[in-house]
């Protein structure tokens, strides 16, 4: 198709509002399947009951049209802009902010966002630099995709960064992952997706951990070296016996996801960001044929 895709700013505002509310209510199918898988493999009685309750909660949220979890999180919007897209970037960001505030006021949602020093809540789920808006460019024709992630604090508080050194090697990375998953225990609402960032600078490393934690279950790290680690680490964390909610059992994590970036000869950074079992996402894809809402 030739021509340009023009992005209508009021449509972005509507989408931002809709995505925030939708993400809080409906879990993606890959996460639902993840529950099924863990439940089938679980050998601990208490853990099985807990998983069954979590699965029931997903159904209750759908039936009562309610939020899955009370934590409305920190709103994150990942925007991917394809080729031949015409959009005013400043207006796009403003529209996302307005949509977020409207979702909060009009639904109404609990605003979980406060000023970091005064702790004042504006009751808009917004503040300085929040919602977090990440913008990237992708090689796709006439497409703009907005992904919304309400990131819960219980799991976000399970974030760790360590500037390992080259002599610590991959062993240092593996040990760090095991030890931090143990430290996080039940606080991060297991079963989780453990996101691991490896390489880059400190800030990129942390960002990669978030990308890894919020990736769909079943997706694999594009770097084959990272993919190998994912499989190994997934088995290892589920051998620790932490279990759903940290009350014991096999199902500690749906998966460990890894993302990598090149790093400096003197550096070996590793970061962890954890996503809880309320692994919520929603997306809107703008194309010449309209706006498609999904996960």
């Amino acid at each position, binding site marked *: 198709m030739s021509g340009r895709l023009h992005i209508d700013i009021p449509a972005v505002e509507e989408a931002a509002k809709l995505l925030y509310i939708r993400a809080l209510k409906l879990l993606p199918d890959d996460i639902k399947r993840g529950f099924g898988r863990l439940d089938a493999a679980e050998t601990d009685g*208490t853990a099985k009951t*807990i998983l069954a*309750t*979590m699965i*029931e*909660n997903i159904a*209750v*949220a759908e039936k*009562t049209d*309610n*939020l*899955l*979890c*009370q*934590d*409305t999180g920190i709103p994150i919007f990942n925007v991917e802009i394809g080729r031949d897209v015409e959009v005013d970037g400043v207006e796009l960001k403003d529209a996302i902010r307005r949509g977020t505030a409207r979702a909060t006021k009009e*639904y*109404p*949602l*609990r*605003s*979980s966002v406060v000023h970091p020093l005064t*702790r004042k*809540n504006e009751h808009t789920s917004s503040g300085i630099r929040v919602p977090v808006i990440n913008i990237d460019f992708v090689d796709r024709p006439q497409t703009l995709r907005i992904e919304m992630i309400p990131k*819960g*604090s*219980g799991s976000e*508080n399970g974030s760790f960064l360590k500037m390992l050194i080259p002599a610590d090697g991959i*062993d240092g990375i*593996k*040990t760090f992952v*095991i*030890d931090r998953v*143990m430290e996080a*225990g*039940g*606080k*991060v*609402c297991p079963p989780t997706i453990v996101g691991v960032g490896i390489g880059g600078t400190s800030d990129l490393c942390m960002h990669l951990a978030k990308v890894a934690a919020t990736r769909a279950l079943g997706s694999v790290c594009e770097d084959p070296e990272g993919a190998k680690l994912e499989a*190994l*680490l997934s*088995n*290892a*964390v589920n*051998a*620790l*016996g*932490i*279990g*759903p*909610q*940290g*009350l*014991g059992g096999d199902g500690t994590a749906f998966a460990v996801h890894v993302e990598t970036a090149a790093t400096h000869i003197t550096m070996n950074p590793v970061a962890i960001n954890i996503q*809880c*079992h*309320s692994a919520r996402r929603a997306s809107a894809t703008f194309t010449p044929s309209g706006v498609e809402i999904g996960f």
Partner: protein
Amino acid sequence: MAHHVFQMPVDEAQARKLRVGDTVTFSGSLFGIRDATQIHMFDRGRKARFDMRGHAVIHTAPNVRKVPLSNECPAGYQPVCVGTTTSDRMERFTHPLMAQYGVRFVIGKGGLREASAAAFREIGGAYLAVIGGTAALETTWIERILDVDLDDLNPESLWHFQVRDFGPLLVAMDSHGGSIYERVRETAAGRRAAALAALGVKA
């Protein structure tokens, strides 16, 4: 492993009957409390006006809708989605909640640590685990929001809920020194070496 059904409030003897692994369902009053609520109560000297003696508190900050006063909504708030937050951040408030306000049960997710275990032992109380992230279900156990205090901290106000058949909740820490979290920590620590060996990490 017994199941206990309570009409709140409870006394010390009832609280001490609970053992780790038991389950609890209760009806009546429940008080919602969170980080800011307790920071203001215990670090900034504000006094809560509710009588919480013998009651349960839950670590929460609910989604609510502001509505006109009615019998259904006597505080002008309707519950939208009420769930539970991570308890660990509020560890240091368990003792004063019990000693100063007579609270018997703390409900939360993810568990508490040694100072809380000591308070449960000394004063007689328990930690009841609700399954974090299952707020849609939890909300169906809430009948009404009866009252609210310290509401300038909204959503981290002190909430007075009326609940029916709230649970089943798992007794995860009791007044006899039992803690499932402690047991799981020991299990994980015991399995750490094997997990690292399976990853090919040289000891």
